[in-house]
């Protein structure tokens, strides 16, 4: 049983800062696993552990995704190995280009039974790549999955829709996008982190997997943070009756 969990590498949103001109700065943000893909890796790890399968983490992106801390982080979460295609033109791709790059990477992995994706990426959240990847690989694809039961040659999955739970049987191989409700990603244990240091990561160039420059279809002209509302900075200190009264008077005035 070969399982592939796809993950995107994104700047850690905790450390993204907004400059005074509302530009977004990634300067201090280290690369990390896109939050939704933690669920995807966890789902892969649980299936691989239950069925003695082999789990591989696959990612594509600019050269900076080849980061030792990040790789160790992924490997401590269950995958036996990582395959990355890292080339600087693999940044700011559209979803179809991303799916194509992933397909090229996955073809290097070889045989697979199940490919898992997250519900969307933490930065753009287009929710397209999983579906397009299935199409490109010419295998069944289903999204919004929050339960997976693996059987011989097939999976039975559940999707929580607006007013019903849909149960679907899909023949393998297949591509499945999981929701963030499917599991609670593990906090790697000491031994898992230690073991991650011994696992392997293969880093390939675009050329190695036979893809040339896609040519940019997307041009980011500007990314701005929303304008901050000027606050009145009217601070009433203390908990005296007077302070409370003044607070209520002011609130009342605004509400009227």
């Amino acid at each position: 049983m070969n399982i592939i969990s796809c993950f995107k590498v994104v700047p850690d949103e905790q450390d993204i800062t907004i400059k005074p001109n509302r530009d977004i700065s990634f300067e201090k943000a280290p690369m990390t696993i896109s939050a939704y893909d933690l669920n995807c890796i966890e789902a892969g790890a649980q299936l691989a552990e239950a069925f003695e399968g082999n789990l591989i983490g696959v990612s594509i992106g600019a050269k900076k995704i080849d980061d030792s801390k990040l790789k160790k982080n992924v490997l401590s979460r269950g995958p036996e190995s990582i395959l990355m295609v890292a080339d600087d033109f693999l940044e700011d791709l559209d979803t179809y280009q991303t799916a194509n790059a992933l397909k090229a990477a996955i073809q290097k992995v070889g045989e697979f039974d199940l490919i898992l994706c997250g519900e969307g990426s933490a930065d753009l959240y287009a929710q397209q790549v999983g579906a397009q990847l299935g199409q490109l690989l010419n295998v069944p694809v289903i999204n919004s999955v929050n339960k997976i039961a693996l059987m011989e040659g097939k999976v039975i999955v559940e999707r929580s829709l607006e007013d019903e739970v849909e149960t679907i049987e899909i023949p393998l191989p297949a591509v499945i996008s999981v929701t963030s409700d499917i599991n609670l990603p593990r906090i790697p244990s000491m031994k898992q982190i230690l073991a991650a240091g011994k696992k392997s990561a293969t880093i390939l160039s675009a050329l190695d997997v036979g893809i040339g420059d896609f040519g940019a279809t997307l041009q980011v002209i500007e990314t701005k943070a929303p304008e901050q509302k000027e606050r009145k900075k009217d601070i009433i200190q203390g908990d005296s009756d007077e302070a409370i009264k003044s607070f209520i008077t002011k609130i009342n005035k605004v509400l009227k």
Partner: protein
Amino acid sequence: MSDDRFDAIIVGGGIAGTVTAYLLAKEGLEVMLVERGNYSGSKNVTGGRIYSHSLEKIIPDFAQEAPVERKITREKISLMTDDSNVTIDFSSTRLGQQGSDSYSVLRGAFDQWLAGKAEDAGVQMVTGIRVDNLIVREGKVCGIVAGEDEMEANITILADGVNSLLAQKLGYRGELSPHQVAVGVKEIIELPSEVIDDRFNCKDGEGTSWLFAGTPSAGKVGGGFIYTNKASISLGVVCTLCELIKANKTIPQMLEDFKSHPSIEPLLKGGKMIEYSGHLVPEGGLHMVPKIIGDGVLIVGDAAGFCINLGYAVRGMDFAVGSAECAARAVLKAKETKNYSAEFLQCYQSFLDDSFVMKDLKHYKNFPHFLEETPRIFDGYPGMAADMMTDLFVVTGNPPQSMTRMMMKHVKQIGLLNIAKDGWKGVRSL
């Protein structure tokens, strides 16, 4: 190496732990370092300066490579009251000579750099893991317990900080007592580096260390501090725990008041607070050093209480490095003879005794007590200094008084004898 055993396990990825790990791995030992935060330095709060003499020995020219902020070439000490501030300002090219230089640091970046060094030397870094307990068999420490996992080692080194719960679990120390520790809070305030150069009268790359006694800690044992970083200022307040109970303000309020003091506010104008943190500071000096050697275990850095607060200078990081070096030497010696008993590991104590760590701690051993016993430093002298300065500099048109009388008036408020006594006691304790 078998998967379940290391030569050494180090608990805590601060300076003491990381340097110990680095030195051991460099000599070929199999070393694991376990850090509770997501990265080294993430759980750390420091005022902000490292005296380089200790680390310079281990990583020569480290300041060229490490993410240090500014070289400290200006030292200021102030006596502060609610409305005034009397400052001694010392700047000299004698400060900042290589070997005796010091640097302001932001430990988030600095510790990660140090951790990188350790990792390159072969240390297995495990971050985001809390060590819950130690494996102890027949009184001998044999490794660590973290969640469901256990890992064994010939020696375990505790570098888990001022409130070392592991040392406490071993029974090597009791609960921290309120007079042994202070509470420190710190803000990092971002300002363009040219603005800092101008406001603090610093050359590019050079900076100021500034300590305050008096109102920052509401007249209690403690004080305020400012260190200039490249493009930010570390500013904070420290107050001894047992005194804090008696203070009329909370620590966050002390910090707010310090920031809005007329002498401080203009320095921070336009700055943006980017980080707020709080931590315990070991302040007991030699008297709080717990048992630091046991069968299969050594304690280093803050966990061992290796820190001195002299009022005009605060040192902890160089002791962290110094104790790490002694511990590493002891472990290497123990490995040679395969003897990790407490008896053999006493060589750690001898190495410490011969190093600046114990020499300095012993030298200043009465100073923490002196500070605590001399509240006038914090609630008397700042006011006296401000009043004297007021008489000197404020011109009202009233007839002048003789200088002696003018000054003695203020001295008498505290009492000449008291001043002499405090001075004598203070100098003796140094």
